[in-house]
């Protein structure tokens, strides 16, 4: 998965570390933010979080979860119904967008079609009454940062999607905003360009040390570049954590499902710690009262598969279950197996490079995984 650090980020402060209080000062604070439209249920409610100076936060969630509304509230484009927004301790909740000093990159870039690239980038400086000569220099520096100096005199429609995206980034950054807000900035790009651009955004964000909020529905994207991720669901912040923590220790089944594929098993806690799932008894890391109905979740690539012909893998404490391969799907860099395990069907993912061998439909296998990789949630919380 995408939890591995991108190579370009090497040498920077380890972003997997939990946010250390006091290390960096708090730069953006959202306090019990709420947005309602008419009598509808709130689009965003009880949203509180704090961002340190230079931190990149990913707001992740399905469409309609309120992440874009949250971003628009921070930028001032949408008035808040309740709650406060503080930037460096100053309450900006009541300020109009043009007095908030925030750089926004819009999903569809929103470049001014009647202005050249240079004029687009210069617009914010012009509004700030920066002198013509200084503005020119800063525009070229900003365009240099996104490697587009050569296209300064083009109109936006003459540029490719990726180039337009970089102009939008330069335009948002040239004003040296106190906060950079990115609203699904990569969703209009093709897959290859998307990876390139997200790394570029991360590089620039790190280099300038700018506090940023990045809205996306793509968990891989969020994991790849964000210091912390906030998963939103139906207007509420479900969990906010580092990518690694989010992936390994999701606090709700919704988050677990959203940040990667999951196997779902239903069972009941037994006296003595095990969980009964159908015929099997599985070990889990956590504990809970006996008799409680549980939802168990295991990531497909954390399950090790071995042929049943060889001896049952002896691994102390590990969950080992027999199964039969029902379906094999080759997806390029991985093989996806559907394995019947008792009454359940388990998805198992194995790398095509490091996998010791591949299996065929009908093969009898053993599935083995660690209790640490078995997440447990009270049944009924996944709704």
């Amino acid at each position: 998965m995408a939890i591995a650090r991108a190579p370009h980020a090497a040498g920077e402060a380890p972003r997997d570390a939990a946010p250390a209080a006091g290390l960096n000062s708090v730069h953006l604070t959202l306090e019990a933010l709420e947005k309602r439209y008419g009598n509808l249920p709130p689009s965003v409610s009880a949203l509180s979080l704090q961002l340190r100076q230079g931190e990149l936060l990913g707001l992740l969630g399905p469409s309609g979860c309120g992440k874009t509304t949250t971003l628009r509230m921070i930028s001032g484009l949408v008035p808040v119904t309740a709650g406060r927004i503080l930037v460096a301790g100053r309450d900006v909740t009541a300020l109009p967008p043009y007095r908030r000093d925030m750089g926004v990159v819009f999903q569809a870039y929103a470049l001014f079609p009647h202005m050249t690239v240079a004029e687009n980038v210069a617009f914010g400086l012009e509004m700030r009454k920066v002198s013509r000569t200084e503005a020119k220099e800063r525009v070229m520096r900003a365009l240099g940062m996104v490697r587009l100096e050569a296209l300064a005199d083009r109109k936006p429609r003459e540029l490719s999607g990726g180039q337009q995206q970089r102009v939008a980034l330069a335009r948002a950054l040239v004003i040296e905003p106190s906060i950079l807000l990115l609203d699904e900035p990569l969703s209009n790009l093709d897959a290859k360009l998307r990876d390139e651009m997200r790394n570029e955004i991360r590089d620039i964000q790190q280099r300038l040390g700018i506090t940023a909020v990045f809205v996306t529905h793509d968990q891989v994207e969020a994991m790849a570049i964000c210091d912390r991720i906030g998963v939103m669901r139906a207007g509420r912040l479900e969990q906010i954590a580092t990518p690694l923590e989010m992936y390994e220790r999701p606090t709700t089944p919704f988050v677990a499902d959203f940040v990667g594929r999951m196997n779902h098993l239903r069972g009941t806690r037994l006296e003595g710690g095990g969980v009964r799932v159908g015929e099997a008894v599985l070990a889990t890391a956590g504990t809970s009262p006996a008799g409680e109905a549980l939802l168990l979740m295991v990531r497909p690539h954390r399950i090790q598969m071995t042929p049943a012909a060889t001896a049952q893998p002896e691994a102390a404490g590990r969950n080992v279950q027999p199964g039969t391969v029902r379906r094999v799907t080759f997806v390029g860099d991985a093989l996806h197996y559907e394995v019947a395990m008792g009454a359940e069907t388990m998805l198992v993912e194995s790398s095509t490079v490091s996998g010791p061998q591949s299996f065929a439909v009908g093969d009898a296998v053993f599935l083995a995984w660690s209790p640490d990789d078995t997440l447990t949630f009270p049944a009924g919380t996944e709704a």
Partner: protein
Amino acid sequence: MSAALLTRPRADWRGGTVLMALLAPILLVNVLTFLAPVINLAMLSFRGSGPGGSIQEGLTTATWTSLLTDSFYWEILLGTVWTSLLITFLTLLCSYPVALWVSRLGARWRNLMMVVCISPLLVSAVVRTYGWMILLGDQGFVPGVIRAMGMTPPRLLFNETGVIIGLTEILMPYMILSLLAGFGKLDRTLEDAAGTLGARPFTVFRRIVLPLSLPGLLLGCLLTFVLAVSSFITPKLLGGGRVVLLATEIYDQAIVTLNWPLASALSILVLVVFGAALAVYGQLSKLVD
């Protein structure tokens, strides 16, 4: 752009004949109902006019000579262009806020308000002109309101003021429609973007909304100007015969004086004015793009 590139080879291959076949009927109609009458009109302007509206045999440039040397006609021409430009400007001024407001309504209200805006077109211009005569007349509503405010109302009917007021209102639906077509392309996120970059609402209007609405604005101005130049019922009725414009003069020459060659020559003059307006529109459109 890319779509045009993709379809061009197909058009070359077989589409050419199909295209011609599809265009033929409209070409034919245009030649028969537009080009031929215009040529006929031009020919007519080179004939002599006799007493009692008779048209003499043989070609003569007498009509054109008198037209181009008589300052009376130059004054009518300049007066018409000036009045029409003024009407176009006032129509734009009255229509722009309405069109901008309508374009920002939600889909349902927008459609309703669009119908409201163009509904005056359902009533004949003659009827609406009579309406204005009632409103602007000495004992009418507008002078009454002015009197009620303790002022002496100026003459609003049977002079140029009346013509300008009436035509401005009558031409507004065309302007509003053209402007709305232009506003359709205006993306609200552009205004959001300008706002986050530090532009106050009026700056956003001046730097983003206005420039991007120029194509629709120019089209509306062209349309309004052309309609203002060619309208004769409203100037005739609201002007009370005292306001002489090209169109009313053509009407008088053709129907009252029965000098068809002169009416034809004046009509050609109107066409020249339209041609000039189109040329100006073309140049401005290029600038805007």
